């Protein structure tokens, strides 16, 4: 069957792994307070791996999600942000990038990540034009699990072939 989104996007394992290793702080746009939502699963997992995760959701601004203060928009976040993870529809990514571009230098943003099923080529090109690294149609939880061995525990094909010991996570 044809998938919902054409997954013609090719990222090497090395490209993704460097992003995940080089990131400490992640803003999640579209974070949910409902713990059974995928965004909540992703946020909790990434927190467990030592990332500082900053939820962004105007409907929940001022409240706490999984112990972190929720912001109305990305500009409000006082800290530096390494990566912005976008949990929104593909069409909504354009306006999100509009918000991000003016604050890229101030917040030291380096990576724009769009979740599984989210793809916006023109927004991605605008982000890349100012030197941002972009990942589309991927989940950071799944990619972390895949590249650092945990997803293999559930029989997922990581594609990783290596005669070196796995680093313990």
């Amino acid at each position, binding site marked *: 069957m044809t998938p919902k989104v054409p997954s013609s996007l090719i990222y090497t394992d090395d490209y993704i792994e460097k992003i995940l290793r080089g990131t400490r702080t992640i803003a999640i746009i579209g974070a949910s307070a409902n713990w059974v939502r995928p965004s909540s699963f992703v946020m909790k997992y990434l927190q467990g791996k030592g990332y500082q995760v900053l939820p962004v959701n105007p409907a929940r601004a001022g409240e706490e999600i999984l112990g972190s203060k929720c912001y109305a928009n990305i500009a409000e976040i006082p800290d530096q942000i390494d990566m912005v993870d976008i949990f929104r529809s593909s069409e909504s990514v354009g306006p999100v990038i509009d918000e991000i571009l003016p604050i890229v230098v101030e917040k030291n943003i380096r990576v724009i990540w769009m979740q599984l099923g989210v793809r916006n080529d023109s927004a991605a090109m605008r982000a890349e034009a100012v030197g941002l690294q972009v990942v589309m149609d991927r989940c950071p939880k799944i990619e972390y699990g895949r590249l650092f061995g945990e997803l293999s525990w559930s029989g997922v094909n990581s594609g990783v072939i290596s005669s*070196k*010991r796995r680093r313990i996570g």
Partner: protein
Amino acid sequence: MDETNASKIQYQYGLETRTIHAGSRPDPVTGARNTPIYQTTAYTFDDANHAADLFNLQTFGFIYSRLTNPTVAVLEERIANLEDGRAALCASSGHAAQFLTFFSLLNPGDEFIASQNLYGGSITQFTHSFKRLGWTCNFVDMTNVENIKSSISVKTKAIFLEVLANPGGVVIDLEAVAKIANGAGIPLIVDNTLATPFLCQPFKWGADLVLHSTTKFLSGHGTSLGGAIVESGMFDWVGNADKFPTMTEPDPAYHGLTFAETFGDFGFTMKARAVGLRDFGPCMSPANAFYTITGMETLHLRMLRHVENAQVVAEFLNSHNSVDWVSYAGLPKSPYYDLAKKYLPKGAGSVFTFGLKGGYEAGVKLVESTNLFSHLANVGDTRSLILHPASTTHRQLTDAQRDAAGAGPKVIRLSIGLETSDDLLYDLDQAMAQ
């Protein structure tokens, strides 16, 4: 963008390399190079929060070996990798894998279509035991794929076939059936047991799920029962949500989690594991996974010799005076020769059938007279095997079902092993002379 990353293409290892390495890196703590047998029932939690996350499927990790086990996981990833699939799940047998597959797809009242050319045990499972669960299987002669179209109804939720069918000789036009399944918005499930991913990779032709009895060629030495489900990750469950509520509706046992949404392209195997294995329990043992992993490391070498020997034996029988007919898709006169060239270019497998001019009596005499061929009910062993399907593997079927499956009273089935091919010819010749 495509262009930016396309220049840095991921290196692709060959099938032989992946047969040996996929899924098994050295143990992170001890450096053990071979996959250890993790003979443990359960795994400790870091704290109560970690335990809760694991039970809620919010993080990856081991809880209890009915669900996941590190040795079994290596085999699962290796099979998924060889099939070029997204994920795999192992079960205690091929039949258990079939049960878990249909349990994860169907509700009572649902139907599916299966090829009439199947392993007899599968026909029995689908006809009788599945019926008691409210699942109806409609068998179709898929050697003409047009028959499938007329059998699809709104209740049809899947199409099932063996690309290289047991007891042998029949090859189904996989690509054509995949188009029909795709058009109907239902998954095509291929039992790839007799071909193995070395001879055929059904996902390349549009299959959505691949099943294996790992008991056969994958483990390869007649030591260990096992089964596997592999998912391509390409089936659009959400787009066909009306047909597959099991995949797309909130699961009450997991706090309303939706498998297709939460796990995306490995949602099916997660469902089969977290619900199917959890509640019915047919898990593979770590020891059987270990035997199967070890056996699989020579899959590519063994399959080459299996098909080479099978071709020699089939040609020998084809020109033997006592033999009436030979059904092997590697023989140019076989009606499936061209399909075999397309789907099984490295060889048409090593399980096939033939009939003796002397009919049933001569067949019984033959299976009792071999000295090297073992008379038993299995296929895919290093040893050559011989069987009379009508009185054994296909015994539970009606006469009509047996004939349709290519397992009539005069049929002898061979599974050609890795012995000296001349010795196999010698043994069959002396047995037919008895």
